[in-house]
């Protein structure tokens, strides 16, 4: 419980911190985006202003006045040329005229001083101090953007000033400059209601008309404390206005200008943002706590529901245990009985083998003796045959009993099944009383199965012998084998009287003989033995079909794993 609580609290704390950091970053990014889009707008405007002024500065009359020693005609000529640029003139239709409207213009002489206009009403009224600020120590050879604070009928204004150089068309020398003051840029897209203030910082003075004078003075003092006039063209820092924290962004408006450095300033009140953040924090914390509490209640409820069946289970399992003990005892006695039976079977087999061997030896020696009636030889021969049969039965029984006792262990190795089949087919054809059957073979030269060769051979032998034994004269045996992913499938089919349908489910039973006549030798253990051996190897035997003169068995052998690399 405590661990869960601590982990949850830690998770909440981390999530909260993460969200705060994200929010802060988002705010900054939003600001940077706004500022840079504003700046792009400014740049476009500057380019437009400069281009406008450059075209004006190239007017032949202005050049004529400057070059043909007619300075008295300079301002009158310019008055005509700049008529539509100046306030009061007819704005060109379709033009966003107000943003490109000049408030004043002046020419500078070759030393950079302001050429006094004959009538300042025509060229826009400027205070003496402001006019003096337009002068350069040396004429600039490139256009300059500057910001000039001034007062117009008691109102504080800021002019955006563009200075373009004028080169003589005759000598190529820098002879003058045209300085035009435009109304400052007031983007209408500025979002109202968010409390964002924007203004300009020029030459250590703050121009931010929307802020009250005392607040502005405090802010200006704070900005002055920050080294803005360094390499940074843009940055941000936190300031306080009326005691409330604000985020201030600034960006240089006129980089590389000979005019005093001017910065666009955006001030964003952090108070509402901090309040939002607080609220968010509380929401996260509260939500987390509610979640935790809910979790505890739910887990208690669930645990209660779970414990009831558990208790029942404990009672039941006690009963089951007693029952199982009884079953185990019964199983143990059964198993003991079974073991005894297999031990008996094994012992019996051993006890049986030696008398048969003695019997066979006796019969063979009698057969070797001469002087008996030929009928006796036949009898002896039949008896000897029976002893062979008996030995076979005993061998099979021995093997079966070992298997039943679980003593038969398979030493699995790759066995070439194809070779085994070929050997047994050879043997079959060599049997003296072999009936005339045709043998069809369809298997690759080498098919390796996993098993012990003795027993695999026994399986094949059993099936092939059956195929011969239960065949008819002039019939055929078909042996085919193929390999798939994990198994080798050996199919042995033979012609001959099919196994009766009702006998088919029992053909693998011990001592069952498929209802065939007694004319065929056999003891009913072969198929049973073969199937047990096949199963012991991880395979199986099945009767595929037995009808219409055709009986087909299929053996499934496991495929031999490739022999391990002798080097390893």
């Amino acid at each position, binding site marked *: 419980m405590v661990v869960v609580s601590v982990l949850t609290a830690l998770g909440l704390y981390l999530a909260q911190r993460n969200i705060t950091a994200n929010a802060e970053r988002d705010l900054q990014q939003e600001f940077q985006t706004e500022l840079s889009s504003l700046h792009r707008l400014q740049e476009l405007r500057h380019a437009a202003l400069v281009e406008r002024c450059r075209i004006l500065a190239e007017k032949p009359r202005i050049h004529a006045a400057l070059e*043909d020693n007619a300075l008295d005609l300079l301002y009158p000529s310019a008055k005509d040329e700049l008529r539509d640029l100046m306030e009061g003139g007819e704005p060109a239709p379709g033009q966003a005229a107000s943003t490109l409207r000049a408030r004043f213009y002046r020419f500078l002489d070759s030393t950079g001083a302001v050429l006094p206009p004959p009538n300042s009403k025509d060229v826009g009224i400027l205070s003496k101090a402001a006019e003096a600020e337009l002068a350069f120590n040396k004429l600039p050879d490139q256009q300059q953007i500057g910001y000039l604070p001034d007062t117009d009928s008691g109102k504080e204004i800021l002019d955006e000033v563009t200075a373009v150089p004028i080169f003589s068309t005759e000598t190529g020398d820098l002879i003058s400059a045209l300085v035009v003051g435009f109304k400052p840029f007031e983007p209408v897209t500025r979002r109202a209601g968010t409390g964002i203030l924007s203004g300009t910082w020029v030459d250590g003075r703050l121009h931010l008309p929307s802020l009250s004078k005392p607040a502005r003075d405090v802010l200006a003092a704070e900005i002055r404390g920050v080294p803005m006039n360094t390499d940074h063209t843009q940055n941000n820092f936190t300031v306080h206005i009326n005691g409330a924290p604000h985020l201030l962004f600034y960006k240089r408006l006129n980089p590389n200008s000979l005019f005093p450095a001017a910065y666009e300033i955006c001030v964003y009140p952090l108070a509402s943002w901090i309040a939002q953040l607080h609220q968010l924090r509380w929401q996260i914390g509260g939500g987390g706590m509610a979640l935790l509490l809910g979790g505890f209640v739910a887990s208690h409820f669930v645990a209660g529901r779970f414990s009831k069946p558990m208790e029942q289970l404990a009672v039941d399992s006690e009963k089951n245990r007693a029952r199982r003990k009884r079953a185990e005892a019964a199983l143990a006695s059964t198993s003991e009985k079974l073991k005894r039976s297999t031990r008996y079977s094994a012992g019996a087999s051993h006890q049986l083998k030696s008398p048969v061997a003695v019997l066979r030896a006796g019969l063979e020696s009698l057969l070797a003796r001469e002087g008996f009636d030929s009928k006796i030889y036949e009898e002896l021969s039949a008896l000897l045959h029976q002893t062979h049969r008996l030995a076979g039965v005993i061998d099979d029984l021995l093997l079966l009993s070992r298997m039943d006792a679980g003593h038969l262990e398979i030493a699995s190795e790759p066995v070439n099944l194809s070779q085994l089949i070929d050997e047994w087919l050879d043997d079959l054809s060599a049997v003296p009383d072999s009936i005339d059957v045709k043998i069809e073979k369809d298997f690759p030269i080498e098919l390796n199965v996993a098993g012990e060769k003795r027993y695999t051979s026994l399986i094949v032998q059993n099936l092939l012998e059956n195929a011969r034994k239960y065949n008819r004269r002039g019939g055929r045996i078909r042996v085919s084998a193929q390999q798939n992913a994990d198994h080798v499938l050996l199919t042995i089919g033979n012609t001959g009287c099919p196994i009766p349908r009702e006998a088919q489910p029992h053909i693998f039973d011990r001592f069952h003989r498929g209802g065939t006549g007694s004319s065929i030798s056999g003891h009913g253990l072969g198929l049973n033995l073969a199937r047990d051996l096949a199963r012991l190897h991880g395979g199986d035997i099945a009767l595929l079909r037995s009808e219409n003169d055709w009986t087909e068995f299929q053996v499934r052998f496991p495929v031999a794993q490739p022999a391990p690399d002798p080097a390893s």
Partner: protein
Amino acid sequence: MGLRGSACFNAVLSLLPISALADAVVEGRVELPKSHSAPVVVKRYEIVTQGGVLSTQPPLAVVYLEGAFPKPKSPPTKQVAQKDLAFLPPLLPIQTGTRVEFPNLDDTYHSVFSYSPAKRFDLGRYRPEERPIPSEAFDTAGLVTLRCDIHEHMRGLILVLNTPYFVMTDAEGRFRLRGLPPGQYTLKAWIDSKTTREKPVALKNGETLHVDFP
């Protein structure tokens, strides 16, 4: 070439009545600044500015006899046309009191004006079919720079002189000034807006004086 030739021819013709009375002649050669391009007679020449100096290219000079001569009672009318966005002829020497017409031979507006101290005027915009042909009378001696308010590259020069005795040199700088009154004068050669050379001359009836401006 045709216009230039006819302008020279006109200048010679206008002097004929005087030459019948006074027939002192001055001839010689003005050494002209080296031209960057080879002097080709048929080549159109134009006003160029180099280091603030206006001159014709290829270089040509105006040779004139300075002195106090009476103004003509009915001053001749001359023309400086605007053709192919250039003034033609680019340099026109005239006597004070001469009226100059500025016909527009292009298919576009021109707006000929001058802010030169010798003559300030502004003809405003006008089209080729403007009638009467805008003209100005030049009453003060001096060099007048012609400009077009629409085509800022256009430049033309009118050299207003207080004398009826003037002539333009050929491309090699050779000149011949006929029908001059006898007496002590100053012969001047205007080479560009900053360079005028001068030499004192004593002219006698029936004599041909040879003067070279080095």
